[in-house]
């Protein structure tokens, strides 16, 4: 289309072969998001979105602002400004179930080396504390009513922002990820290492908090980029060179180690392997999400589904996006959403292959405008190979194009749709147009009734 707009000339067919990217085309009948609302409040990259409750979420970005939004109306509820530099971590601090105090708290850490506790009902700054180094991750251990800050060291804090205890200096690069595991343990990713700490709550004999290092796991060969809890038994880590390790959550033993898992076909020719190795960036595991059976990994530009039972990749989409996938999430309805540096958000559905799946690519006519992304002939053989090895496939359901720069994160609301934030300073609220239309009708008739203008047919 670009070509057409510039020169008006017809695009040569051959160009399309360069990219094997799947294009969904413009005819996306299953894509529910037919309404959008652009929210603008930030002046810099928006990096974080946190769900606060059923209808509220907070966004935070490089401008140091935290903004609380209404996910239903898109109204800006509060603007929390206190940080002078970009925000590095944000986590809601739910109130203790036992306590009567019902203040809605949220913790933010920033590159200005402070952590601020906010009350997001009132916008009040509850507490503020300064650190020696930038806090890169925050975790709340709700059971103990404490929270941990991960920077160059690991600190343990209570609700009132008193430092309970902290570790010694761990590394200059700092803790990149922090996950809570059973028995008051936390797993921290520090460079290539995984360090297990145990938080010791005060007892009658020892009336003070303590944090002790339990174990160091050195199995990764490169920096650990992602770390999540899978279930009660396992947690999983992914590294820059594409190692995926599944660990036992209790004894921290390796359950599965996959190095070339992004390459599920054994009989892959050497040429391709070389090509993959050349681009390290293409194989780094950027983000994980999981459900009971599968781990979904964002590897480079592709998406992979790794089945825990079968211990193998059951579906993949090697070129899900034009650029690195930054965040993925699994929806309840077997759908997977991914967002990428190329500014797009894609919705996928995991389907089992029964027979040869119908060609999801729209016909050539529609794609006349498709920027030459698809070529049926070129992608066919590769597909065949995948079909041989993977029992499932990820079918594109739709894509959301709105941001002009990389989409950093998104948040899914069951009732209100999808929120995406991006480096173009915008937040977009994607909504199900049909559902919204129904809601508006409902509202309209409610208002009519309030005004006494509603006449019922006899």
């Amino acid at each position, binding site marked *: 289309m670009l070509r057409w707009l510039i020169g008006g000339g017809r695009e040569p067919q051959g160009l399309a072969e360069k990219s094997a990217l799947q294009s969904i085309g413009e005819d996306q009948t299953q894509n529910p998001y037919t309404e959008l609302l*652009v929210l603008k409040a930030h002046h810099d990259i928006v990096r974080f979105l946190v769900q606060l409750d059923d209808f509220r979420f907070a966004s935070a970005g490089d401008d140091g602002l935290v903004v609380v939004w209404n996910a239903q109306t898109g109204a800006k509820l509060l603007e929390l400004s206190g940080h002078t530099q970009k925000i590095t971590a944000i986590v809601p601090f739910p109130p203790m179930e036992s306590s009567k105090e019902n203040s809605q708290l949220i913790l933010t850490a920033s590159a200005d080396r402070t952590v601020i506790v906010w009350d997001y009902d009132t916008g009040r700054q509850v507490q503020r504390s300064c650190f020696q180094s930038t806090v890169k991750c925050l975790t709340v251990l709700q059971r103990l009513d404490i929270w941990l800050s991960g920077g160059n060291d690991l600190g343990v804090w209570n609700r009132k922002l008193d430092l309970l205890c902290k570790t010694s200096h761990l590394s200059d690069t700092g803790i990149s990820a922090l996950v809570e595991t059973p028995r008051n343990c936390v797993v921290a990713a520090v460079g290539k290492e995984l360090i297990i700490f145990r938080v010791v709550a005060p007892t009658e004999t020892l009336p003070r908090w303590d944090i002790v290092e339990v174990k160091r796991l050195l199995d990764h060969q490169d920096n650990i980029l992602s770390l999540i809890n899978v279930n009660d038994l396992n947690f999983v880590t992914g590294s820059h060179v594409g190692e995926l390790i599944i660990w036992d959550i209790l004894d921290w033993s390796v359950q599965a180690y996959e190095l070339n898992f992004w390459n599920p076909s054994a009989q892959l020719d050497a040429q391709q392997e070389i090509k993959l190795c050349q681009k390290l960036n293409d194989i780094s595991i950027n983000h994980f999400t999981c459900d009971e059976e599968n781990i979904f990994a964002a590897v480079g530009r592709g998406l992979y589904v790794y089945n825990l039972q079968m211990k193998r990749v059951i579906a993949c989409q090697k070129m899900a996006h034009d650029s690195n996938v930054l965040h993925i999430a699994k929806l309840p309805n077997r759908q997977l959403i991914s967002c990428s540096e190329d500014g797009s958000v894609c919705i996928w559905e995991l389907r089992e292959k029964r027979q040869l799946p119908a060609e999801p690519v729209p016909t050539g006519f529609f794609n006349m405008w498709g920027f030459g992304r698809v070529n049926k002939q070129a992608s066919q053989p590769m597909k065949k190979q995948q079909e041989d090895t993977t029992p499932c496939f990820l079918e594109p359901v739709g894509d959301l194009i709105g941001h002009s720069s990389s989409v950093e994160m998104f948040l899914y609301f069951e009732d209100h749709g999808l929120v995406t934030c991006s480096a173009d300073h915008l937040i977009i609220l994607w909504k199900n147009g049909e559902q919204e239309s129904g809601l508006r009708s409902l509202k309209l008739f409610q208002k009519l009734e309030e005004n006494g203008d509603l006449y019922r047919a006899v």
Partner: protein
Amino acid sequence: MISAPDVVAFTKEDEYEEEPYNEPALPEEYSVPLFPFTSQGANPWSKLSGAKFSRDFILISEFSEQVGPQPLLTIPNDTKVFGTFDLNYFSLRIMSVDYQASFVGHPPGSAYPKLNFVEDSKVVLGDSKEGAFAYVHHLTLYDLEARGFVRPFCMAYISSDQHKIMQQFQELSAEFSKASECLKTGNRKAFAGELEKKLKDLDYTRTVLHTETEIQKKANDKGFYSSQAIEKANELASVEKSIIEHQDLLKQIRSYPRQKMKASDLCPGEMEHNHEQADQASTTSNPDELADVDLYTCRPTYTPKLIKAKSTKCFDKKLKTLEELCDTEYFTQTLAQLSHIEHMFRGDLCYLLTSQIDRALLKQQRVTNFLFEDFVEVSDKMADRQESVSSQPGQDRPPSRSVEECPIPKVLISVGSYKSSVESVLIKMEQELGDEYNKEVEAPESNSFDLQENLDYLDMDMKGSISSGESIEVLGMEKFTSVLSKSDSQASLTVPLSPQVVRSKAVSHRTISEDSIEVLSTCPSEALIPDDFKASYPSAINEEETYADNEEAIHFEASVSAPELDEAQEGSLENTLSQVDSCCIGKESEGQLVPLPTSVHILSDEDGVVSIPPQPYRQKDQVFHVDFTVENASPSRDKSSDMFPSYELDPSHLLASRDVSKTSLDNYSDTTSYVSSLASTSSDRIPSSAHPGGLSSERHKKRAGQNALKFIRQYPFAHPAIYSLLSGRTLVVLGEDETIVRKLVSALSIFVPNYGHYAKPVKHWISSPLQIMDFQKWKLIGLQRVASPASVNTLHALSRYSRYISILDLDSKTLRCPLYRGTLVPRLADHRTQIKRGSTYYLHVQSMLTQLCSKAFLYTFCHHLHLPAHNEETQEVVASRQANFLKLNLGLVNEDIKVVQYLAELLKLRYIQESPGTTHPLLRFDYVPSFLYKI
């Protein structure tokens, strides 16, 4: 589809705009016989046989105590308008019917001169020999040097059509009252200043005299007074008396009742200013409170001088001019208001009536009218609604009845007891504001008021009494429009309108023939003509102007700098600037336009109804600018008004300026209309601040319609493009040539539904890459295609967001947009339409869109189409019912459904909106494939 104006088109083929293609001439037997007097250049609707002036104008006259009645100025101030019409004679006539009974001086039993706050009188006067009929508005201004402190003036709206005067009486009265009020407010201010000065003089004189007397007393110790001393003492006494008198006058002028000011609602530009004034005036009305007195005090630099105690009334002294009598500022505002009036009532009566009915009907569509109607009309609708809310108590009765019960003639008959040769309407004042509305109803019955009683009312000292708005009671139907706007719950909406119009017409004519002896006697032929629309065919003033819409026009457009316009379009330019802008345009292109104005001139001469000669006005425009600077430079006591001209502070001004910028934009595309419109704008001195939505928007509509028609004929893919606009999919018009893009964008904007009562979501010209926000904000965008590599971003954005937009490429003549297979747009935009004229096509589009709106309304507000009728009903049932309704009841097919659904969403959004302007616009879209259309 042939509508009435198109039949007309066949009668005088050669006078209309250039037609896109020539149709074969109609066979002889089908053609409408040509108007017999075509050869003489006469217009079938021109009824100017007797009149010596070419079109309606406004005359301001004065009854000078030195020379008698004399004309002061006319609006428009151009000799061509009134031609050979004898202004002096007519001034004499209109000044001789002043019923104002202004009585100033020493009333019997009162020690001091009394000022009367006299109501204006409104009179209709006819002179059929001259072919002139006039609405005459008498008012009195105060002048310390004048006899009895008063100077009688009158403003007259002179027309050759007596029906127009009679039927537009209330509107004329309302508008002229505003102008009069403005003048009087300024005058009171000036008069108070005058008094202050005089008091200072007197005070000074007294001091001087006093000292002199003291000296004499001391010098004279013989115990008797010299005659000189006695004289001095007498002089002193008379100065003392004079001081008291003047103080009393000052007190009176300051105590001008506030309610009266409130009641007079001035034109928007003046509103704020005068209310402020009124507020201050009211605070000063408390004599104890001296804090605000400085409003009326004169400049501190004034040095008192010695004056003679006895004021002399000499005839050789120069009387103050009207401008001196009022504040310059107010004078300018009044002129603006008057030219607004001139604009408002320009054109044939039938045309005025139609547009009034049109507006009244539109106001009733409160839920849907924001979609396609002009926000200008809507804004005055809002005002009306407020008014009608405030005047609720009086509106329990159906408006149609009130109209029938208080017809104009009764009032006129009662006035007939004046034994005068004219019809006039007297002002009656109510003492209690609360009674006002009841009395309003009674007004016709209470015409048993005899003259004396009325005069009693008039004579009453207004001080302290809570008086009411002046014209309401008298006219009885003053609030007619607002009454109607309230009455949409009543079943008969249109019915009361038309009968009333006809009726009042008939009635007024009868009145003339019975009561106004002189008129009758001088024009027997008039009276014999039956009561039909003998003179009231749509002369369609605006249609008579000629087009020169051709490729040359485009050539001229290029000479004007674009960014200025763009800004003006955004309303970000201040009024003065935009005006200057248009002036500049005038000058710039003047040289190029040499041949055109003359041709226009000739043509309009032939037209006979409206001639807008283009040339002589430029000088005037300059004069205006000088005036303006003087006004701003004059030391005003009101700081805020000094800093910002009042219209700048007024939000409604924005509308006006937007309107003007629209005109100028539109003028771009048509050199001829541009010239005439420049003439009309400059002739009224303050073109934009006073009259929103006058002729200019009319012209805009016409141009838009014409260009839209052209687009439809030129491009076979006009239907999908229009469908895109109607269904809320942003249409990007891509092109290199700004003027062509702008022209098409303003043409297509008639199809764009509004979000609310503000500017249409249309961006005429943009050159930066588009963003997602733009599609949320704008539904029609003119985009610059740049040849340089910098444009890659722009084009990349287009391809990236291609799912949200339709792209019309003007350079390669292609359109990329979704498929359209409905039946609605083909009817709306038929390329084989018989409609030839822009304004006709615009009306056609409006009527089609109104129809569409009503469908959307039905769809939106049927409960069961959106929500289950009972609890057990599933969503599927509702959905199928919805589909059935759209298909069977509304007769929509395929993509037409989406249009109605989009409009329904807009209606819903607007209806559930809490307060206007708070909701964010949504971007709704569909995932549908697009196609590429080529010519």
